[in-house]
């Protein structure tokens, strides 16, 4: 992984990232939201970050964006340490690293015209007036919106259009890395496909690196090159997207794969039955044993070792897996769907 060439550093490099919410003694008692996560993203590459809600995937995004200060660990952007960048540094950084949020209704200020929102972003790098307006129009057109959108309010757009605006807002500063925090999960299926296609086109056109955060593997499979599966702030499995989705090595990945929605109702029913057969429990609120595997309390394969010893990431096949029983998965378990 760390065989990067000096002249070509990864777009994003994250090492041993730990994020705790709150401060003081009480925060130390609760488990961290992100616990020792490492990954990197090459320029032009898309990394999928998958996990159910509360797994810490959005927190990683926030840490990257400077919205949530990391407790420990380091974040590099193009080889530059940005872990504790000041506001001033962030401002220049913000041109390279942009974000598209999940909720297109909340991510645009309803009281401001689209043009104002885009111009606000541009003003921070010194582009004002007509120049800003022209650039805003170009960007809006590049995401497939008419140029007169610039004088409208967000309430006049549909969810998919708003998400395009959000993408335009990210692109207007001409970045090379985008954090996509569940960009399509609030949209209906047909719009999802359009937006995903747009994102793919833009990536190819602008050579963008994506950190693509999602809660199911389905959409990740479409866009990502590699994928990281997160559970309770820890990496369960990572590797090329094909390997992880078609041959998951971690029981949790298996459950996630089964949970990914499919457009055909019949298959959905099959999947659900299959998922139930997995007998993977739902997330419990009880904190996991700090010494053991975080997934142990829900895992059908868990044994004494799992509760006592935290599994380390191991390279199995094409992917890295943190499970004592990874060899078993896909061989004797789970039972095949009927």
């Amino acid at each position: 992984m760390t065989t990067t060439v000096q002249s070509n550093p990864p777009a994003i490099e994250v090492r041993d990232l730990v994020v705790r919410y709150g401060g003081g003694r009480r925060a130390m008692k609760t488990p961290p939201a992100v616990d020792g996560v490492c990954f990197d993203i090459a320029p032009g590459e898309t990394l999928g970050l998958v996990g159910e809600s509360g797994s810490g995937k959005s927190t990683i995004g926030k840490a990257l964006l400077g919205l949530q200060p990391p407790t420990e660990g380091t974040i590099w952007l193009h080889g530059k340490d940005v872990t504790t960048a000041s506001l001033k540094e962030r401002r220049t950084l913000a041109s390279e690293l942009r974000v598209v949020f999940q909720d297109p209704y909340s991510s645009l200020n309803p009281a401001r015209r689209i043009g104002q929102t885009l111009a606000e972003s541009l003003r921070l790098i010194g582009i004002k007036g007509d120049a800003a307006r022209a650039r805003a129009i170009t960007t809006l057109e590049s995401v497939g919106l008419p140029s007169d959108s610039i004088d409208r309010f967000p309430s006049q757009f549909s969810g998919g259009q708003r998400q395009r605006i959000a993408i335009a807002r990210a692109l207007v500063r001409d970045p090379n890395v985008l954090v996509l925090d569940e960009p399509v999960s609030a949209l209906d299926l047909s719009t999802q496909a359009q937006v995903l296609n747009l994102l793919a086109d833009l990536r190819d056109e602008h050579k963008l690196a994506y950190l693509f955060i999602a809660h199911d593997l389905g959409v990740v499979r479409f866009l990502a090159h590699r994928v990281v599966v997160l559970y309770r702030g820890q990496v369960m499995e990572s590797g090329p997207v094909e390997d992880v989705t078609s041959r998951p090595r971690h029981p949790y990945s298996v459950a996630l794969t089964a949970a990914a929605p499919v457009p055909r109702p019949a298959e959905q029913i099959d999947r659900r039955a299959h998922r139930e057969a997995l007998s993977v429990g739902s997330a419990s609120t009880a904190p996991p044993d700090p010494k053991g595997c975080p997934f142990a309390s829900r895992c059908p394969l868990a044994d004494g070792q799992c509760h006592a010893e935290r599994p380390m990431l191991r390279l199995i096949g094409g992917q890295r897996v943190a499970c004592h029983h990874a060899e078993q998965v896909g061989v004797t378990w789970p039972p095949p769907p009927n």
Partner: protein
Amino acid sequence: MSSIRQAKQQRIPAFLRSWGGVFGAGWLIFMFLASITARWWRPYDVAEQDLIARLQGPSSEYWLGTDAVGRDLFSRVFTAGALPLQASAVMVLVAFGIGLPLILIAAERGGRVEEAIGRFAETIMSLPSTVILLAAIGAIGNRIYPVMMIFGLLVSAALYRILIGVAKSSRQHLYIDAARVDGMGSIRVNLAHVLPSMARPIAVQAAIVYAIGLLIINGLAFLGFGPGEPQPSWGFMIKDASDNIFNSPWMMVPSRRRPLAHGHGGECAGRCAGRTPRHPGVHPP
């Protein structure tokens, strides 16, 4: 089509979209302007008396009648407004001037900062304000502006308690995060995004607090801490009217009209500005 209308409405503050709100806000503005300009158009001087026409009911000569020494109530009622209307405005400014920064800081920082400010606000809120105001008058004298500033300080705590939730939920908006990712500074984020999104509840609370300020000033005047005679004050006019309630009971009506209408104006504008606030928090005494 409908989206265009929607867009136009966007620019009209919510509380002006109902008749009650228009009336309330209009009334407040009218009274404010009428009161501070009263000295130029009032039909009689506030001290001018007509002993023969004392304690009269409304007539074409004296539109609201006369008081116990035959002074024109119409002129006095409007002139009396200037001081409370201004002093209460100062109070509102102080209250928001102290309260809003604390609210914004607490909402932004969260955690221990929020807890500390919250504790402080809770402490201030539990103080019996009328008693404190009387103590302030006893200590620094009957000076309405400083006294109302102290009241503003007390009110700021109540504002904090009411608006902190609004501010926090307003910060939940992703466009705040987006602005921060843009590299916007904390102050700019607050001014450009957080505050405007809180405009409606702030307007509601400002109207309510303003009305309460008027009631407090009039209450103090009723207790004898108004401007000295012959300067008119609403509270003292009520007192005067209550002293003459047997001789001319109707005097209660014009003297009450102002504080009432004001309380009502503020209340109405406030209520119509949004739905009835879930936790009104600050109330008139």
